[in-house]
């Protein structure tokens, strides 16, 4: 065989690989996610019951489906391959319970070992989370006196502050080791419960305003530098559901599926934009 016959094949192969690079990368990341191997690109954090798992499953396309069952408390790290824009990212969802060993392992991997960590999605819900365990729920209502929605929200927001403080500390340490994320997105979930007060939630979570929460984020940005860490606050609603607490009901009032899809689209496009900026 003449060498001239070989040349087109040799040239064609890399061109074909280049043309299909996104497809190859997608399946490669999917494989890594299946075997739970590889460095984290994006890490999803937040307090228990804020909707981290359901958010990742929504982005993955597993939810909402007719036969979808809302998840129980996550006890271990969940690894998914998610599409943001053109590229697929390896996303890890870290359990919210601070006593969970898996959480420490996940944070250690993301902030201190991963060479490819791009960003952090910190999920919050403006205090509208409740324990999944009925005994615990009753204990908080009857024994601890958290008997109104406002009281449980205040309690949750206080714990959320403690949590974001510890996450900010982790990011600071990671930055000093040269492995910090480039962006942080505050995903304000469950906006269907406070759609009429969404501006108040924005004032609490957006870094353009001042609140106890944003103080923590701004402290982090000031110590790392605004050019090194971009921060964005995005409203989200991944699962419309009424919030019931001790007989008091906060009804979902998002106003239709199109708004829910619009919020999701906005969320995904913002992550894609953030990823491109790196």
């Amino acid at each position, binding site marked *: 065989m003449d060498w001239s016959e070989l040349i087109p094949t040799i040239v064609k192969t890399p061109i074909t690989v280049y043309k299909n690079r996104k497809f190859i990368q997608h399946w490669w990341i999917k494989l890594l996610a299946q075997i739970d191997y590889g460095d984290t690109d994006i890490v999803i954090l937040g307090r228990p019951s804020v909707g981290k798992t359901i958010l990742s499953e929504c982005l993955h396309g597993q939810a909402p489906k007719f036969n979808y069952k809302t998840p129980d408390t996550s006890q271990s790290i969940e690894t998914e391959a998610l599409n943001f824009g053109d590229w697929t990212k390896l996303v890890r969802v870290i359990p919210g*319970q601070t*006593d*969970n*060993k898996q959480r*420490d392992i996940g944070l250690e991997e993301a902030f201190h070992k991963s060479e490819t960590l791009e960003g952090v999605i910190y999920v919050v819900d403006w205090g509208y989370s409740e324990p999944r365990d009925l005994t615990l729920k009753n204990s908080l209502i009857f024994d601890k006196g958290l008997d109104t929605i406002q009281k449980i929200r205040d309690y949750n927001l206080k714990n959320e502050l403690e949590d974001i403080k510890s996450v900010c500390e982790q990011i600071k340490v990671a930055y000093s080791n040269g492995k910090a994320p480039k962006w942080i997105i505050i995903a304000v979930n469950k906006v269907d419960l406070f759609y009429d007060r969404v501006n108040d939630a924005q004032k609490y979570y957006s870094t353009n305003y001042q609140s106890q929460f944003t103080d923590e984020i701004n402290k982090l940005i000031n110590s790392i530098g605004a050019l090194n860490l971009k921060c964005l606050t995005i409203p989200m609603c991944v699962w419309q559901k009424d919030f019931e607490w001790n007989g008091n009901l906060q009804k979902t009032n998002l106003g239709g599926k199109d708004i829910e899809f619009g919020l999701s689209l906005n969320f995904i496009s913002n992550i894609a934009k953030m990823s491109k900026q790196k």
Partner: protein
Amino acid sequence: MKTENYNELIELIELAEKVADKTEFYKNKLFNARLLILVLTVVSFGNFFFLILIANDYNFKTDNIKFTILILSLIASLFYIFSIVRQTFRFKKYYYHERKTLSRLLEMTNEFKMLAFDSSVLSVIEKAMVEMRLSRINFNE
């Protein structure tokens, strides 16, 4: 001043420690039982194929005892496998029961820790002791 929240947290931690130990115990039992089933199955298959191989050339009048011993050992190992399989199902049931309890305790200790730290005047050492005890518990068996 230690409050009721702190006492409840300590009780929950004690329970979680016990349940975590039990979970570990059943996990090991389950592993050992499964390993034993695997080994016995391999031995029984070996025994069975050995019987088939030698059956043709066997003089049943003279070697009757040897053949009977082989058959009996095969039956005995099959019975043993059956009893271990039953045991495995029992261990599995206990193991999942303990795991379920442990996952409930994970949620509860997490919430009660925050309440206790918030409402009790605890020293740094006391808080650290609670943290250390909790960090020793493997909630993800």
